[in-house]
């Protein structure tokens, strides 16, 4: 079965609000996680990554939180903008594999 999965297929937020996208993973041996953004008709674009020796990592307007106890990953986007509208995927390297494995994706819709 897949290693990662997403709780919600669609998230709608107002422009300027903060967005939180969640992801659950099943493989406790996974030690590296990535969030990708995919705009319509384009390839996945790297947003931020985190290794299992960390529980939080911040980028520009984005923060990833990792809770290894409950095997949960989240992506927080501050002050969401219309340009943030896209599908967001979490991905990991399942233990023993060389293949980055994607979850099902959450569509973020930003309302003006």
């Amino acid at each position, binding site marked *: 079965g897949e290693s990662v999965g997403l709780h919600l297929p669609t998230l709608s937020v107002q422009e300027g609000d903060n967005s939180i996208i969640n992801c659950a993973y099943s493989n406790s041996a996974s030690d590296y996680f990535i969030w990708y953004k*995919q705009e319509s008709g384009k*390839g*996945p674009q*790297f947003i931020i990554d985190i290794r299992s020796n960390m529980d939080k990592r911040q980028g520009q307007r984005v923060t990833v939180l990792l809770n290894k106890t409950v095997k949960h990953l989240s992506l927080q986007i501050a002050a969401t903008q219309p340009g943030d509208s896209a599908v967001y995927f979490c991905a990991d390297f399942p233990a023993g594999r060389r*293949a*980055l494995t*994607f*979850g*099902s*994706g959450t569509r973020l819709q930003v309302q003006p």
Partner: protein
Amino acid sequence: EPEVTQTPSHQVTQMGQEVILRCVPISNHLYFYWYRQILGQKVEFLVSFYNNEISEKSEIFDDQFSVERPDGSNFTLKIRSTKLEDSAMYFCASSVWNDNEKLFFGSGTQLSVL
């Protein structure tokens, strides 16, 4: 900023025909990948390639698929006899290292099998 480039952006073919999808990975990257995404679904791993050989492949990557690095810059995916269910967006990706490093993706080739 360096990027992975893919050609063509769209490919239409008849069922049973052979297609070759082309990719130019980022120049200093050592690992290369093909993924596919059927419309509305998640991105699925097909194959990884390093040092001129396949590192890992998924169950999707059957005998109809092959990959090649014919020269120092190109990385190709060949589907020998296309089926309707091969219709998808195919993404090439590359990374510097394979051990837990982020992948950089191209913009994809939309393959339509009629």
